């Protein structure tokens, strides 16, 4: 039965992949350029959405129930209420008090205060950011989700607004670029956040990603992150660290955001390799390094040095190799990495997040913002690869709280305008409605990103000996026996002594025989 299931799923996958044309354009029965409602002209995003809704009557309602819209998520496993506006990360920390900048990645228009719910009008949903196929549409970085509606000067260059009618007439299925517009650029730039998601996945070589490469399966994000009624599958908040359900059949499983969905839990021809799947996540062997596409990912963000100005009172910016900012008066010190080897940890899918306003004791000046849980005894845990992002973030030692940092805005407190951390922290905490002692220090933070994209070709997988070795990749992973890494020190001593003793013994014996025979 399992076998039939396997064959059926393989066929389905093959059909699905074969059905994806290279251009990303799907054969469809509707030509959006012929719709009266999309003739335009449109003066704003919401006007386009209104036109979309005239046919897609339920679309806004569906989107408004999704995490992309609510930024509000109840984690039933930890009891935490999460979402972008509620959790700390080790980049800018939180969107709170920085909205028009951060909410430029909200799937809507005009969310200017994340302390409140997003706007409630159906037209506030942004259909185009996900469904534009022309690449002409983009949300302007500082306009709370709106695109440009008129030409604007940006750093001395004039930027033109998109032709909304043209974009509206060319909508279609989502592509890697649609998702990437936000997910490649999280943390304020290309590849900054995840390490395994950056613009190199727009047109990746097969060596970078076998699934998304045109020479590979040419899959889009939504091939795995299936959307059912606009609800995306696969989230960091509740990672499926393991998928005992295995192969997905269309009738009962519409969520393909695990490797096992298509590959099953026993995908290898060699039985010994399949022996690993009960303890090791697929990603651990199949993604040897992340940030492999030529885009560096940020590995350290040290806020403690932010705000430095030169003798003329001008903010200091220092570029390092590859043209990345090494130091920025706005943001502090940075480090980047390319072709980064992940760190490995047991992970059962649960990562308690550091929530804004939550009290936290810094241990030796350190806070783990989202420690992955699980150990070798946990049947739901697998050894997973992570990007370990290092931070140094403001912390109120009196109230024992991470500080909301007001970085963005043309006011007299925002850090990026005034370069005065004390003012920015006070304003941020006030905005968030949190107690603030006025005292701040900087704690080191770790933030963990499960690595799951940039799956390498078979020939580039992690080799057995890289983990089955004394100082290998999985050094320090407890709770399992690994040949080549583990042993019993006493048995080893006794064993080698026995071998050496036997060898020495026979040599002495042989020598004696020769000597004694000569005498005789």
């Amino acid at each position, binding site marked *: 039965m399992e076998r039939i299931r396997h064959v059926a799923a393989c066929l389905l996958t093959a059909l699905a992949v074969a059905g994806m044309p290279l251009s990303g354009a799907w054969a469809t029965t509707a030509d959006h350029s012929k719709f009266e409602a999309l003739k335009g002209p449109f003066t704003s995003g919401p006007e386009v959405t209104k036109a979309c809704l005239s046919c897609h009557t339920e679309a806004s309602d569906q989107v408004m129930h999704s995490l992309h819209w609510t930024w509000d998520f109840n984690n039933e496993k930890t009891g935490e209420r999460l979402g972008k506006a509620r959790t700390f990360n080790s980049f800018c920390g939180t969107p709170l008090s920085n909205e028009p900048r951060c909410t430029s990645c909200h799937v809507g228009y005009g969310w200017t205060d994340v302390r409140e719910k997003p706007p409630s009008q159906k037209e506030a949903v942004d259909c185009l950011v996900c469904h534009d196929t022309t690449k002409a549409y983009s949300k302007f970085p500082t306009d709370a989700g709106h695109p440009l509606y008129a030409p604007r000067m940006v750093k001395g260059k004039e930027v033109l607004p998109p032709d909304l009618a043209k974009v509206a007439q060319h909508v279609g299925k989502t592509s890697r670029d649609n998702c990437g517009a936000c997910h490649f650029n999280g943390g304020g730039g290309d590849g900054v956040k995840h390490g395994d998601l950056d613009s190199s996945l727009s047109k990746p070589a097969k060596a970078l990603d076998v699934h998304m490469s045109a020479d590979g399966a040419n899959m889009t994000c939504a091939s795995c992150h299936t959307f059912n009624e606009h609800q995306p599958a696969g989230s960091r908040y509740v990672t499926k660290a393991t998928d005992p359900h295995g192969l997905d059949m269309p009738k009962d499983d519409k969520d393909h955001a695990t490797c096992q969905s298509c590959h099953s839990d026993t995908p290898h021809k060699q*039985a*010994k390799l*399949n*022996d690993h799947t*009960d303890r090791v996540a697929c990603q651990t062997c199949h993604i040897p390094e992340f940030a492999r596409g030529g885009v560096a990912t940020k590995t350290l963000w040290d806020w403690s040095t932010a705000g430095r100005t030169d003798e003329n009172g001008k903010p200091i910016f220092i570029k390092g190799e590859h043209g990345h900012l090494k130091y920025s008066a706005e943001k502090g010190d940075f480090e980047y990495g390319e072709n980064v080897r992940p760190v490995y940890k047991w992970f059962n899918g649960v990562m308690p997040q550091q929530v804004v306003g939550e009290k936290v004791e810094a241990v030796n000046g350190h806070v783990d913002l989202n420690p992955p849980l699980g150990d*070798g*005894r946990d049947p739901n845990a697998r050894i997973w690869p992570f990007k370990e992002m290092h931070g140094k973030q403001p912390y109120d030692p009196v109230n024992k709280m991470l500080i909301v940092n007001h970085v963005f805005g043309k006011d007299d407190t925002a850090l990026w305008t005034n370069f005065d951390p004390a003012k920015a922290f006070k304003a941020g905490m006030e905005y968030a409605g949190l107690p603030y002692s006025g005292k701040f220090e900087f704690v080191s933070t770790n933030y963990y990103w499960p690595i799951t994209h940039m799956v390498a070709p078979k020939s580039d997988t992690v*080799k*057995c*000996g890289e983990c*089955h*070795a*004394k100082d290998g990749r999985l050094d320090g992973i407890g*709770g*399992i*026996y690994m*040949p*080549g*890494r*583990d*042993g*019993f020190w006493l*048995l*080893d001593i*006794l*064993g*080698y002594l*026995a*071998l050496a*003793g*036997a*060898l020495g*013994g*026979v040599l002495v*014996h*042989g020598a*004696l*025989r020769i000597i*004694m*025979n000569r005498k*005789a």
Partner: protein
Amino acid sequence: MSINKREVMIYSRYERFWHWSQAALIFTLFFTGLRIHGTHEILKFGQAVTIHTYAAYALLVLWAFTTFWHFTTGQWRQYLFKKGIMKVIRFYAYGILKGEPHPYKKSLQRKQNALQSLAYMTFMVIIGPALWISGIFYLLYNEWDQFAWAGDGIWAVALVHTAAAFAMGTFVIIHIYMTTTGKTPLHYVKTMITGYDKVELSEVEEAYLTQTKAVDIR
């Protein structure tokens, strides 16, 4: 009754085939096993595992056939406990250095001395089974990994397998050295290759073997 020393085929073709292929497989398994254990890095880990696994399958098949052979030919009796083990030990510890003759006379029914029998018996009843039983558990890990005790079980399997492997290695070193203690250093090895050795035959035995050709005599 007169006794003649004759060149008799004491190791039949199958017995020699079994011995030498077992030797090759054990060398392969020990060498790759030490790689997997982390003792050396002459091979890649994955290669070592593949070779180790196939050699293990081959040895299991060989042992299955050989167990069958031992019982159908009655040769298993050669391994039974014999008296006079202290004499043999004393000989190897002392007498051999003084040039004393071996206290045991080889015969068709007694191809092994008392010490040999005990060593081979240990090999076949303790070291061998410890290796293949733990090895099969190792190979079939996927069939029992769902049990709660699997995590501890694999440690136990590894402990037994490693300990038995060290014992096997020790056995092999001494075994090889012992082959040099014949009339000439290569005498025993030659015997194991050709199958023939000088054995004392009684007139009756000689007549019987010549008549029936049950065993080759030169």
